[in-house]
C-alpha cells in the first residue's frame, strides 16, 4: 500500500494522505494450499511417530519404576504445555483462516498427544517419584 501525503505541508492541521494506492500481488491459491497440506502432513506424521515412541515408553515405565524415577517431570510438563499451546494455535488458525482448514488435523493430533499420551506418561512418572519420596 502506498500513501502519498497532501500538498499542504506547512498546514498546522493534521495531515491526511491525498491518495492511497493498493498494489495487489497475485497469489497462486493451489501453491498456497499445497504448502498448508504439506505442512499438515509432515506435522501429523511427526506426532503419530511420537505416539508410537511414547506408547513404548509408557509400557516400559509401567513395569520399571526405577526408570520412571529417572525421568524429569519439568521436561515432561514443559513439553505438555508446549503441545497444548500448539494445539490451540493450530485450532485457532484452522477456524480463523480462510484456507487453513487442513491445520485442524495437526490440531487434533496435538490434542490427543497432550491429553492422552503425554499426560499418561506424566502421571506414571509422577506416581513413581511420589512413592520414591
Amino acid at each position, binding site marked *: 500500500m502506498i500513501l502519498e501525503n497532501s500538498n499542504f505541508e506547512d498546514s498546522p492541521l493534521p495531515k491526511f494522505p491525498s491518495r492511497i494506492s493498493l498494489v495487489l500481488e497475485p497469489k497462486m491459491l493451489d501453491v498456497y494450499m499445497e504448502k498448508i497440506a504439506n505442512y499438515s502432513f509432515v506435522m501429523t506424521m511427526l506426532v503419530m511417530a511420537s505416539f508410537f515412541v511414547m506408547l513404548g515408553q509408557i509400557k516400559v515405565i509401567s513395569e520399571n519404576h526405577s526408570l520412571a524415577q529417572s525421568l524429569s517431570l519439568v521436561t515432561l510438563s514443559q*513439553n505438555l504445555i508446549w503441545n497444548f*499451546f500448539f494445539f490451540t494455535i493450530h485450532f485457532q488458525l484452522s477456524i480463523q483462516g480462510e484456507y487453513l482448514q487442513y491445520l485442524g488435523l495437526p490440531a487434533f493430533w496435538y490434542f490427543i498427544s497432550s491429553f492422552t499420551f503425554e499426560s499418561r506418561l506424566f502421571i506414571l512418572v509422577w506416581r513413581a517419584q511420589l512413592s520414591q519420596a
Partner: protein
Amino acid sequence: MRRRLTTFYMIFYLSSFVFIAFQNWFLYSPEALLIFNATLLIPQIAKNFANRSRRGPTFQLALSLCAVQSFMPIYLCMCPSNFMEHETDPITGIYAVLVMGASLLVLMR
C-alpha cells in the same frame, strides 16, 4: 496426591493461559524459542547430573519430544516460503537446532 494433582493442573492451565495470551511472543520471538523451547532437555540433564546417573529417556523419546515441540517454530524460522508468510530468521533456527542437538548429545553420551 489429590492436592498435588490439583496444584499441578492449576499450574498447567495457568501456564497454558499465559502462553496463549502472549502467543505472538512465544511463537515468533527468538528469545522465547531459545530460552523456553530449545532448552527442553536441560532439566533432564540437570536431574541426571544431580543423581549422578545416566538413566533417563531413550534416544527415540528424547528426539520425538524435541521434534514435536520445536518443529513449528523452526519451520517458521527457517522456511522462507512458509505458509504463514512470516519473516525468516535462519540464525535463530540454527542456534535452536544446535542447542537441542548438543543437549541430546550430552544426554546420550
